[in-house]
């Protein structure tokens, strides 16, 4: 029904993942089985269109107040690479 090999390539692109050689071997079969298995759901007759909400109490909205956040230096110290007060990343646009 689904060509999982093609699909997996597309999905891994969407998910920003590359598959190792071993995963390329194993994953298509596994994913097909899992998707088949969760597909059982299609036999369940669910009344109406009602969708689940994890809480049934009304959510509280926060006032839009300026609050103290984490110190910049501490947060920056977590960055894998930085330049001055900035987080540094590799070039965004490909070289021409």
């Amino acid at each position, binding site marked *: 029904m689904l060509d999982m090999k093609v699909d997996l390539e597309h999905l891994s692109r969407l998910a920003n993942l590359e598959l190792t050689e071993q995963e390329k071997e194993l994953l298509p079969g596994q994913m097909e089985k899992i*998707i088949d298995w969760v597909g059982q759901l299609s036999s369940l007759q669910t009344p109406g269109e009602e969708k689940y909400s994890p809480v049934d109490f009304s959510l509280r909205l926060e006032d839009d107040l300026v609050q103290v956040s984490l110190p910049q230096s501490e947060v920056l110290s977590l960055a894998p690479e930085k330049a001055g007060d900035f987080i540094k990343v590799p070039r965004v646009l490909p070289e021409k």
Partner: protein
Amino acid sequence: MKYIELGLTEAVDLVRKSQVKAEELVASFISHVEVVDREIGAYLTTVFDRALSQAREVDGKKHKGRLAGAVVAIKDNIVTRGIRTTCGSRILENFIPPYEATVVERLKAEDAIIIGKTNLDEFAMGSSTENSAFFPTRNPWDLDRVPGGSSGGSAAAVAALEAMAALGSDTGGSVRQPAAFCGIVGLKPTYGRVSRYGLIAFASSLDQIGPMARSVKDCALITSVIAGFDPRDSTSAELPVPDYLSELESPGRPAKIAFLGESSLQGLNPEVAENYRQVQQIVSGLCSEITFLDFPSWEMALPCYYIIAPSEASSNLARYDGVRYGFRAPAAELAEMYLKTRTAGFGSEVKRRILLGTFALSSGYYEAYYARAARARQAITAELKAALEKVDFILTPATPEPAFKLGEIQDPIAMYLQDYFTVAASLAGIPGISIPCGLTREGLPLGLQVLARPFSESELFKFAFLLENNLKFKNNMYGIKARGRRKNEN
């Protein structure tokens, strides 16, 4: 009696009366952990020096908190300020959080002492702790077996007397299943009862932090401390938190309970089924009314969960891109860096679930998978809540089988089936507790799950306490001690 064998409630009592020093308690745990954790592998990180200085501080206080001297382990997907928090993943291997989870803040404010961070399946995805990127944890009752998962490190630490109690997190059964495998008590509170601020997100509509300890009492005390509204988690409920511990002793009316009907037990491990029937005998004398119920929608609970949870995970885990924190793979261009970082940083099970979630949410499949699962979730919830209007508690086995051997389950779906009895409560957001209820002939612990109405933890603890007293599962058979005795018998 050795300090490490003291229950948390007893130990706290002694420390608060200044009869025992917190420092002595911590020191005895440290020397025990140093010996046994080489075998068990419950801890990813230990913070002995911090724990000792925290203990000295507690000893010096005139007014000691409700958890003074409690030696507690924290699952490593709960962030601890200044203490490495890996989530069992290479992608966060060297992550030192700049902030503290609300639950940890609350434990410390009551003078609990954090001794270390426990192992887990990477991003809490798994049922055996074998998916940890670092090493597997072993079951203290039998080192060839898994402790369950994903809170396997927390369960093993408590069972092996490496901590008085621990925090775990439960998304589809990750507190209740390892508690059952390791012969301890574990609670998944009602969704919204405990703040998730600082819990590294896996599936946000399901995740809930819960206590794991050697008795119902100890779990009740910890829950009183960690529960309650938190402005930093808008899904936490603004409801008062009872003193669960003191309510345990107050008299209650006999409960109406439901067991699963025989048709729900088809295909169950025979020893689990036999134990479940024995429990029915014991429990029937303690209740005012007993019924047998089947939950037709439960057949759909696992497939539903394995669409919803991976979908939320695929979205939650999009944040790990190597830019702001965590692991970054070297690359010449940004897009390539994202790809290489995530590829090298995530293990196979995490990738499988991200891809599964990406699939369920992608255009063309969303209606057939995610939307259908969301409606199924509504149906499962309605069925459970309707049953809980007629009875106070539903009792089920906690797991379909006792702890299995390391490496025994290779097929992903076979591993997913471990959650058979636990996921329905996760999907419905209701509380569930797992308490030890017997041993197999081989001497492996079995767990009983009790489900209750939302925000009825007080009644749930009280009933679990009654069961605990009647099931008479002996604390002194736990972990290392039981193993030692079995070795001597041989």
